[in-house]
């Protein structure tokens, strides 16, 4: 048809390293802030873009809009008082914080988790993953002009929130995984109602596949865009679906099984193109795996048994000096808690290792130069980052 050759005579100079010499005084560059109020659905972070025409030549991630100083707040709370605040670290998928913190405390305090509690924990974590993927895929659709997918999947997510509510007693911040177990067992008839949600989800996912993944526009906008060289994965700390989209089957559930994942039968989906399409597809496929896992967990879970061990008096609970790191596979990658105790009733230090920390900062800044402005939002969304876990 026709080809378009840009006229580069008006373009700024390119330095010896092949990069633009950015000088705002030349008038050839423009600063453009994305965020903090609405960069796709990634939450409150902003990217300071320097653009030249449609091309972004530099991007700097700015975070801290959601900084509450959790790691500091935890240091002045007793071990049980930390429990309600950890889930706030990550809003869309709070349960990993609860699990990692509880498991870290249990390890350092020498507490055994009852078998059934492990199953319920796994159930909750997978329910959380379900929700998180629903948001993510909906978000990718939304960022690429297909808001209806976001509408559908948010509705499905809401159905899962209803299940969360009847199981844990809350919609978003469940505060259900206490050190020592979980607060309660499954309510009567839970399995049946869960199955309804999963069936509905599958129906909507079939539609999503038709609307989004079999869509010429979507393909055009995502294939080959936002490529991450798998060679960078280790140096930029890329984990989870972002790595799996590049052919690396990194998954803590398989690599280092925790809870009951060694008793579950599942494969980790892997894609190889490492672009936005691959990242979206790998999430979509993993979501299907999650639905299968939810069914498996409910079927294999022991029907009886304790869900909570009795704790020492939590009002003056002291844990001997020690340190540990507990990790799990969240929907964004490796989620971990590094807990240091000093023998007092308070944690010495808690460090939350959120996967978004590496994905949204160094990696995103590395990926942005050279992209089209219109693709920045898609790129950000495809990395699936949650700012609150970056700045905590």
């Amino acid at each position, binding site marked *: 048809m026709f080809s378009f050759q840009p006229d580069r005579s008006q373009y700024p100079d390119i330095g010896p390293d092949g990069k633009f010499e950015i000088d705002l005084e030349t008038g050839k560059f423009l600063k453009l802030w994305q965020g*903090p*109020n*609405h960069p796709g659905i990634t*939450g*409150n972070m902003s990217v300071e873009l320097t653009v030249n025409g449609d091309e972004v030549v530099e991007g700097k991630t700015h975070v*801290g*809009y*959601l*900084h*509450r*100083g959790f790691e*500091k*707040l935890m*240091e*002045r*709370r*007793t071990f049980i*008082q930390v429990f*309600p*605040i950890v889930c*706030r670290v990550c*809003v*869309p998928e709070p349960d990993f914080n609860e699990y990692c913190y509880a498991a870290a405390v249990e390890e350092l305090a020498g507490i055994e988790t009852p078998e059934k509690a492990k199953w319920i924990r796994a159930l909750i974590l997978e329910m959380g993953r379900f929700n998180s993927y629903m948001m993510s895929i909906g978000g990718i659709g939304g960022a690429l002009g297909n808001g209806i997918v*976001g*509408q559908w999947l*948010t*509705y499905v997510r*809401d159905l899962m*929130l209803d299940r969360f509510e009847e199981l844990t007693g809350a*919609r*978003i*911040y469940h505060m259900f995984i206490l050190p020592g177990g979980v607060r309660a067992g499954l309510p009567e008839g839970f399995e049946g109602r869960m199955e309804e949600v999963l069936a509905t989800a599958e129906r909507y996912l079939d539609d999503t596949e038709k609307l989004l993944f079999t869509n010429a526009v979507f393909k055009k906008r995502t294939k080959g865009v936002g490529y991450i060289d798998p060679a960078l994965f280790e140096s930029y700390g890329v984990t989870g679906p972002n790595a799996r989209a590049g052919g690396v089957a990194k998954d803590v559930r398989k690599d280092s099984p925790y809870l009951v994942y060694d008793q579950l039968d599942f494969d980790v989906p892997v894609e190889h193109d490492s672009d936005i399409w691959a990242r979206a597809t790998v999430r979509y496929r993993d979501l299907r795996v999650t639905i299968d896992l939810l069914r498996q967990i409910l079927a294999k879970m022991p029907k009886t048994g304790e869900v909570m061990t009795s704790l020492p008096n939590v009002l003056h609970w002291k844990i001997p000096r020690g340190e540990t790191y507990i990790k799990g596979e969240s929907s964004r990658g490796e989620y971990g808690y590094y807990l240091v105790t000093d023998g007092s009733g*308070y944690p010495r230090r808690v460090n939350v290792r959120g996967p978004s920390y590496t994905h949204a900062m160094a990696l995103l800044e590395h990926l942005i130069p050279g992209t089209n402005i219109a693709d920045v939002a898609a790129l950000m969304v495809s990395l699936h980052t949650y700012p*609150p876990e970056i700045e905590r």
Partner: protein
Amino acid sequence: MKDIDKSFKKDTETDFPLREEMRPRKVTTPDGQVIDIDPLQDYFCQEPPKVHRKSYSAIVEGFYNWARANSLWILGFGTGCGAIEMRPLMTPRFDAYRYGIQWRPTPRQSNLLVISGYLSVKTLKRAIRAYEQMPQPKYVVGLGSCTINGGMYWDSYNTIKKLDEYLPVDLYIAGCMPRPEALLAGLMDLKKLIRKGEAEGANRYAENFDWYKANQKSVIKDWDMPDYSW
């Protein structure tokens, strides 16, 4: 809960010098003038907003209020965790659009700012800016414990505790975080307030502008934002 360290005094530590960009210095402007700047002291946007007068006719005012109440346009700026419960309202299940509520991407098109939970100092600065950019009449709803009395971040060094010190709040909704249903109930209550002409937060802000600004300045350092027209 660990005891408070009574001996701690803020800003008395001298071992940690200010960052370069926050120190007072001389700057040459593009037109060649040399001016002194002190980033911690210089504030912009000091121009106070104007009080939005009521219409002379009660009937007309009543009509305006009816119209305002039925078109709540919310700024799509989720300042804290509570934002996640706003999203279901935008979807078919809760469908807030049928009540005349919708979300807008820019403050210039919005008349309702929902402070969805805690505000870090950094976000407060943006929230104030967003609020000031919104055209009158405009309303603020505080969502959840954090906006009322600090919530779970009551001892955080980086979040404000009382939203009404910094922005005029018309309505609060309890919860951590409030469910979409509660949020919707709050918005319905706000509609009633507007119809009665009682949601006068924006005028309060204009009337007590100096007080609000003083409070804002007491927590926000480094206010490097340009002036703008109201």
